[in-house]
Each structure stands twice: as structure tokens, then as C-alpha cells.
């Protein structure tokens, strides 16, 4: 069984990304269990969605120090979940800072050198300016599909399946934009 965690801030599109991923895994023939925490996620809190997949999966939750991939939409949120990553794990992180309220209100400091810290815990760290890419493509909301592209590039599943699922799942008007976003992310292979 393998585990993936997708993390970010409410409103960034974390759940859409994990829906795409689970569709890909199902298509590939895996047993898939996905878990997410709803509730206050729309109110600027942190969001995580976790996916376990393999020939047969029982638990919907990841285990500490045993997770294979973390895909994070925001830097601090990558750090928040770092204890889950296995020492051979890969972490893919959007080069994007969203200050949480305690920082914005001046009570606390946003951590420095997050990348350095991540490197201490991960076998590989891939930093991608996904939000910048999405903005460049003309729609900040495409950030999640750029990141799905990064994940696709670093997992061992046929690219066609991913492209096919993206095509099927995004609104028809936005297919071209999202395919472009996916391709841009797919370049970040390590």
C-alpha cells in the first residue's frame, strides 16, 4: 500500500486535486481510499486530503513516517505534515506563502528556510512556482492542476491516464487551460 497527502489552505483547490488523483488511481485499477477533513476548511484553515492505494486497502488514513508523497499547495502546510513522510518520501511543494492569521496579526513569525527543513526529512524536495505559472496562464485557479502535473511527473503511472482524467473532469470551457497547466507542471520531474 502507498500513501499520498495533499495539503494546503481552504479555497486553494486541494479537494479537487485529490479527486483527480483518486480517479487516476481507480482507472489504473488500484483499490483506493481517500479521506478528507471538512468543516471549517472554507474559513482559511488548513486542509488535508489523504489517499491510500494498492491492490487491497483497508485504512483510509496515512501513518506517521510511512507516507510516500506529499503534495503541498503552500509552504507552511508542507512543513505541518512533514512527520508523515517516510524517509524515502518525495515532497512536492508550491513555492507560495499564505500567512496564517497569527502571523498576519503579528503574534507569530512565518518560519524561515522551509525548503532547508523539508530537505532534512525528505529524500527529495521539488519546489514549483505553481501559483505563478497559473497566474501566467491567466487563471490562478489552475494552480491545482499545475500541481497535479507535478505529481503525475513523479509517480509511476502512465501520463495518458492523467491527461484523460483531467480532460474528463474539468469543465469543458477550461479543458485547454487545464491541459496546458498540467503540461507545465509535468515538466518538474526529478
Amino acid at each position: 500500500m502507498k500513501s499520498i497527502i495533499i495539503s494546503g489552505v481552504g479555497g486553494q483547490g486541494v479537494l479537487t486535486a485529490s479527486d483527480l488523483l483518486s480517479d487516476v488511481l481507480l482507472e489504473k485499477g488500484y483499490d483506493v481510499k481517500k479521506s478528507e477533513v471538512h468543516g471549517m476548511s472554507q474559513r482559511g484553515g488548513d486542509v488535508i486530503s489523504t489517499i491510500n492505494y494498492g491492490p487491497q486497502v483497508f485504512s483510509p488514513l496515512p501513518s506517521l513516517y510511512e507516507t510516500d508523497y506529499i503534495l503541498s499547495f503552500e509552504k507552511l502546510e508542507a512543513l505541518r505534515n512533514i512527520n508523515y513522510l517516510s524517509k524515502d518520501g518525495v515532497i512536492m511543494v508550491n513555492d507560495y506563502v499564505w500567512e496564517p492569521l497569527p502571523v498576519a496579526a503579528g503574534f507569530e513569525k512565518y518560519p524561515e528556510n522551509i525548503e532547508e527543513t523539508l530537505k532534512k526529512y525528505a529524500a527529495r524536495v521539488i519546489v514549483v512556482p505553481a501559483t505563478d505559472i497559473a497566474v501566467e496562464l491567466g487563471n490562478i485557479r489552475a494552480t491545482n492542476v499545475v500541481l497535479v502535473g507535478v505529481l503525475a511527473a513523479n509517480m509511476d503511472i502512465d501520463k495518458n491516464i492523467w491527461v484523460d482524467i483531467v480532460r474528463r473532469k474539468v469543465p469543458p470551457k477550461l479543458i485547454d487551460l487545464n491541459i496546458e497547466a498540467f503540461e507545465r507542471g509535468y515538466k518538474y520531474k526529478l
Partner: protein
Amino acid sequence: MKKELLSGNEAVARGAYEAGVTFAAAYPGTPSTEILENITQYKEHIYCHWGANEKTALEEALGACFTGARSMASMKHVGLNVAADPFFSASYLGVKGGLIIVSADDPGMHSSQNEQDNRNYALAAKMPVLEPSDSQEAKDMVIEGIKLSEKYNTPVMIRMTTRTCHSRSAVELGERETPPEINYVKDFKRTMLLPALARPKHVAVEKRQKEIKEFSNQFKFNHIIEGKTRVGVIASGVSYQYGREVFKDAWFLKLGMPYPFPSKLFREFASHVDKIYILEENDPFIETFVQLEHTGKEIIGKDVFPLTGEMSTDVIHASLGEKDLTLKFDLNSIPKRPPTLCAGCPHTATFHNLSMQKLNVTGDIGCYTLGALPPLNAMDTCIDMGASITALLGMEKACEKAGKELNAVAIIGDSTFFHSGITGLLDIIFNKGKTTVIILDNSITAMTGHQVNPGTGLNAMGEPAPRVDLVKLAKDGLGIEHTYEIDGYDVKALKEIIKREVKREAPSVLVVRRPCALLFRGAQWSPMQVDTSKCIYCKLCTKLGCPAITPQNEKSHITPERCIGCTVCAQVCPVKAIQFVDENGMHIHDTTLEEFMKSKRGGKK
């Protein structure tokens, strides 16, 4: 067969469809909300609606089942406290059409004020309880639950949990059964609970429970899985899934219906093992029944596994001393990301004023509970839905009697007010209270994801519905003379009216109105900006806790993508440094959002 990845809640809704359910009612509450939301996709087949609260929803489902309709009521765990009265009655009354009561418990308290284990309710009310461990079972148990309900003339409780509600797994979809005919037949002896009629019903209930207990030994969701060792595991709900991951070679007694407890099946299981682990979230519910069997086997239950929080493979390993859960990276070294009131939230200005006036505030449950957190710090109590009003009435009466002053207001959301605030208001009038009640009316149930309520003007199926006007209700209906409507973005009006009404020797109701900022997002106008040459960095605006406002180089800064132009920060700024900026870079002072939008100077971002 078609397989789809469904959440547990979607699967329950699907189960209702396939089981031939034709009536569903609920009151929103995480993690149960999406059950009814998903039932609306079958609205051609299932009539569904939101009740004002869980009690009304359950009574409605019970009434529907008297006509022969297969029915369902769903709610979060604490919702069953509200619905406990009809819940107990329902057990005695029995059903005509099958009745499913879904309780979504919240081990780990992801979004609740406690983690009560509602299987105890099933035991207390003497009704069977089913516990699905994944989405497939969630769907199947609704279908089997309806059968069980009709066969044994009992409502059936399904205990979901946050994890089973909100995790997704593959589900095989089936066809819809033809619902039974609807036909209400007058039958006083059956549907009345008078003492004389209830006494024989209690006898019948005890007999029924014995029969169901016998049946539970063959029930398809209670079964034994053979193992390769003399170790056994008994598990229910999602704990079963964690157990299968951890105890690879053990025997399993999988209990889909932990109550009534299948004693015979258990004894058979016990004969194959020497040592029994019991995996269940929260209370030692199954464990208590196991102990009563006195098998003499070694039982490992809540003496080892925690009573609090969620189960997981990590928790099992750690409880058995097999895994160290100390975190290598210390999470206390990084800032938390608490949820916050949104930019443009219509609740913010009220809390700002309560905080500035240093009032005591009894609070309630909703998005606005976030007003308790820094920097607003404007709420002192949170008990349960509706308690802001009643708790304050109690406090005021106690202080009055002792001749003590209490400068306080009660604050409550519109959905919460409809749910159980109205009765508190009745107590105020009836008992000559002088309480000041602020109703934060965004005309929606925002916290749980924007469900409609009696003040919205739409019903659950998306049809136009009558809209209850809170001002009329309080003023004309209940006769509270000092009832006022105030704009949630008008800082000054709020300040003056709150100051005045707190002192009043009579009850008052302040209805603070504005739509939820998340629903207002469609209109994203040119944002407000801080004129840094004027900003004196007094931090009054950052103390609003607005996520669009951050300090930057000793000045306040507004993140344009987040600002929706509510103007509250501009109103609290003592030096008028915050203003609208139109597309030509022109600065516009002292304008309300409406005026600015009307002037058409604020283009889309």
C-alpha cells in the same frame, strides 16, 4: 456492476435511494450534512427537507413512516441530544414504513464540542444500531436497515463517524427498490403513547430486542473471518479497517450491528482464540457486552486503547507499545492556521464593537463562534445551540437578585436562532427579562456549508419558499418593542445601538443583516487600499482579524485578491487612510460598498 468512489455520506444518500426511501429530513451538522445534500439529487424520488432542528426533522420522519413511507432522519451526534425525545418515543411506537436514524459521531472532535458515543443512545432507547466501516457498507446498511426496521417494527440507528462520513471508497451501485404503498390508516393504539398504551409497548420492545438479538447471530454484517493464530480481534466501524491493516493473521469478529450483541456468534468466535483485542472508537460499548459473557479469555480493550480521539493504525501500534508517536519535527515550533472569519464577513463589525465596548458576551455556535478568538476576543461562553440567549437570561436574573450589574449581550446566528433560540426569547418575554439579543442574520447556515434555513427564501430542493422575517417575528409576533434592523457593515450604527440597548431596562433584539461574504464573492469589485502616506500603523484595522489585512513595513496592507470591499476597516481607521480605488487610480472616500458598486467605478478584478 458500476463502481464509484463515494464518500460515506454520499453512500448513505445512495442507500436511501436504492432502499426505496421516499421521505428524508435533517438538520445540518458536520459530519452529517452531505447526507441530505446528496439526497436532493434524488428529489424526483425522495421528498426531502431541512428541519428547523433535529427534533423537528426526526418527528417529521417518524410521521412520514406512519403513512408507510420509508423514511430517514440524519443529524450530527449532538443533534441527537436535541432529538432525544422523539428518538425514545420512536422505539416504543415502532414503524410502518422503515425508519432509519443516522447519527454522525465525531471521535477526535474535528468540528464539535464533545465526542459522545451515540451507540449508548441505541442501548438506552432499545433500538438496533448499525456501524458501517466504509462507504459500501454505509450504502448496504441503509438498505438492510430498512428491511430490519420493517421486519422487527423498530427504528434503526446507523452510527457513522467523521471518518466513515468523509472518506471515500468504491461502492457498487444498484437499482432502486419499489417503495411500498403509502396509506395512513387510523390506528390509535399503535400511534398513541399514553401510559396505558405504552406499558404493553414496553413489554413488546423488550421481546423485540430479544428477537433481534437472536437474529444478530445470523445478520450478514456480523461475521467471523478465519485467522491463522489464536489471536482474535473484535471491531466495529472504521476501527475494523485499521484492525485488518495491523492484525494480519488474527481471527476477526466483525460487528456491523454491535447492539443487540450477538452472544452466540461471539462464543463461537471466542472458541477459536485465547486472546481478544477489541477495537472501537470512544466508549467500551462492545467491550461491556464481551465482559458480560465471562469467557475467561484475555480481553484487551479500553485498558490499552484510548477512550478519547480517533482510532488509527498508528494509535493501535502506539497503544501496544510498537510505535513511538513522538513527533520528530515539533509542530509547536510553527504557527497554527486557525480558521478565521472571512474577509468581508458581516459578523466582524459587530464583534469589533463588542470588543471595543468591553461587554460580556454569551455566545452560540456558528461561524461567528470564531469571534471568540484573538484578535477580536469578543465571546465568553459557548454551550450548545441556542444557549446564548437562555444562559444570559439566567446570568442576568442571578445578578439582578444580588444587586450586581452585568453589561452583557447574547449573540446568535440566524440558523441557530431558528433552531433553538426562539424558545429562549419566549422565556425572556414571559419572565420579564431585559436581555439584549443580537441576531447575526446572514440568511443562511454558513458554518456547515451554506444550507438554506427558514430565513433564506429557498428550500432544500432549491424551490422558492416563504421567508421568515426576524424583525417581524420579534416585534410583531413576540411583541418585543425594541427590535431593530442594522446593516452589518455599518460600524457606527452598530456602536450606538449596542451601547444604547445594553443599558435599556427592557428586552431588545438587534437583527444585524448582510449576506455571507462567501456567497457574495461573485461581485469582486476593485478592492480597498491603504494610503501608506496616511497610515499611522495604529493597528486598529489589523485588530479586526480580517484575513485581507496584514502588516507590511510598519504599515497596514490589503491583499487585493482577498478584499471584497466591505469598508469596515475604512470605517475604523482614525485617519481615513483606507479607501476605494477605482480603475483610474482615483481614490474615493466615505463611500459605502453599494454606492461604489452603483457608481460603476469599481470594475471586476
